[in-house]
């Protein structure tokens, strides 16, 4: 964090990074490969839709989200079984002479549907909440969203933003790299 405000604009505003616009997915893809190979780590691309193969072009590691979902799902399964087992033990109800229900003494079969459903429910919540949490969302303010040009990323424009926090960041060299990669416009983003 020490490097956060190393660069400021002429007006004295701290700089978030350099934003470069590209016209097509292909241009962005090749620019990303160059940024990745130049050794940047704190940078991102912004596209109106997920572009196939961007993970490789940007060197993004595979997300751990599926593990979170699995953990959530099995938690749901466990809690659902415990709930049914405990509630059936707490309030004994004889139904057609069947056992009250526990794993050991038998009678666990009627617990299967609810156990399954709650497993799914917890997994679904963990996938949405896990995705948002790993992405640092919800976050309703961001330096990039202040840039009007950037808002076109939700329609048909493709952007690269290299953050000033990156160890390799250098206003001139970074700009030159993006220019060389075919950016149609480049601007500074204030914090």
């Amino acid at each position, binding site marked *: 964090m020490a490097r956060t405000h190393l660069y400021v604009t002429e007006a004295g505003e701290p700089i978030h990074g350099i934003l470069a616009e590209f016209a097509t997915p292909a241009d962005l893809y090749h620019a990303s490969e160059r940024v990745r190979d130049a050794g940047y780590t704190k940078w991102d691309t912004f596209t109106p839709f*997920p572009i196939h193969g961007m993970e490789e072009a940007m060197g993004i590691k595979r997300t751990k989200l*599926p593990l979170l979902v699995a953990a959530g799902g099995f938690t749901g399964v466990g809690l659902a079984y415990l709930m049914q087992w405990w509630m059936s033990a707490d*309030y004994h109800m004889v139904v057609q002479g069947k056992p009250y229900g526990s794993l050991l003494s038998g009678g666990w079969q*009627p617990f299967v*549907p609810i156990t399954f459903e709650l497993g799914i429910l917890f997994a679904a919540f963990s*996938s949405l909440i896990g*995705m948002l949490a790993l992405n640092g969302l919800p976050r309703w303010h*961001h330096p990039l969203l202040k840039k009007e040009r950037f808002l076109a990323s939700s329609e*048909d424009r493709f952007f690269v933003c290299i953050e000033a926090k990156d160890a390799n960041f250098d206003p001139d060299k970074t700009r030159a790299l993006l220019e060389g990669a075919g950016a149609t416009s480049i601007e500074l983003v204030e914090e």
Partner: protein
Amino acid sequence: MSAIHPDQLTAQRLAGMARPPIEPPTDPSTGDGTLIDDPAKRAPLVLNQRSFKEVTDIICGYAENKPPIWWLPVFMLTSTIAGLGGLFITYLVITGIGTWGLTNQVDWAWDITNFVFWIGIGHAGTLISAILCLLKQKWRTAVNRAAEAMTIFAVICAATFPGIHVGRQWMAWMLFPFPNSNSIWPNFKSPLLWDVFAVSTYGIVSLLFWFMGMIPDLATLRDRADRRLRHAGDGGPILFPLLPVRTDKIRAYVYGLLALGWRFSSRHWHRYEAAYLVLAGISTPLVLSVHSIVSFDFATSILPGWHTTIFPPYFVAGAIFGGFAMVLMLLIPARELYPNMKDFITLRHLENMAKIILVTGMMVGFAYSMEFFIAYYGGNPNELFAFKNRAFGPYWWAYATMVSCNVLSPQVFWNKAMRTKPIVIFFISLLVTIGMWFERFVIIVTSLHRTFLPGEWHMFHPSMVDIMIFVGSCGVFLTLFLLFLRFLPVFAMAELKAVMPQASPHHSAEGGSSAYGMGVSPLQVDAPKGGH
């Protein structure tokens, strides 16, 4: 888009930004150009060679522009019907379920028929969003948003009925295991309780799936409102003549709040796609389980006509069958009435769904005949009687309606000319929807009305309250769907853009018609592996 000025188009074309003029499909037998049978050519998913910008403008336009002229009158009609249904529910709660046509013997009738009918309709949305996603059926991107919305609205309608059929509706919270001063817990061995969990889970997971899919598109609507605000200064349209709140300000806030600050980052997209795939993966067994559990309500009883092991697969097939019919009944008028919607919902989409109707209709027909065969082959006189009574007893007309609508009417889809005509598909879908309602009525009422003792034989006659609550639920469903068409992104814009040819990073920038499916060379076709 009519918003584009002709000069602007000419200027864009001169600057090399616009495409050459649109060519009509070369072969008239391909309809709008999407009904290609040649396996070497890929049917275009979006017609008229739309650019990303045009796709965004068209789809956001449904939520941003004034609604079509018919929208408000239709909305007022459907919401009146919904309100009328609400009044009859109020009357039911005040007076009691004796106001329904239930008798001592037929103690479940339209309430549960409507419940199973609506919950079944929901299944098509999840099938499209989950199972077709796992199967990489790219055409689903044009219909999944509307189908998922329909799922949620159908689940809302369905959930009403178990809630109001309990008799003392103010005790309906006891459906859930809430701690209470009587220290009693629900009976976990009852399929009715499984149903509560299955339907609640299904409703919530469908809602999460729908919402997650909408996050990027809500962000698009937010950004567009934000840009208009920045340009308009202090001007811009206001919400009501007397209210000095600008419409775009409300849009930017509401869509912005719902979009959770999404900013189209590729690192975010990566996790988003993983989460989407995981949700599709877990929704697939979920959708199959929900209607199986609904069928357990009947199958685990000992009543002849209900007590059959074929019920779970039979119900699931019927649910998908009825659900697709409802999707088609909503989307065929929508694509006629909204401008440019035919570019996204092409004839091929309709044909694909007609094929699914044909397949699932045959499954349902197989289940009908198998039930009869087992009733005969199983040698249980009570069961044989129940089925003979079902087809030839006093409710023969309901059974005949069910078979002719569900099994016979979809057979016209064997003919390609029939399954590519929207009006024919709409009409068959209407028949299927009627048939599927009758299927549930037949299963429930004909099994109940003549049981073991002839002294218990009764006919069921629906009361006005029965009828109006069902009609009201149709009003609720349509009202919610109209609101969806008016205020939310009707198509999954981001997904739709991702399956367009120019979305591939290996797409050549020369553009032109070559990449849009008509004159594609095989080398260009296989560039994107798989897809999203």
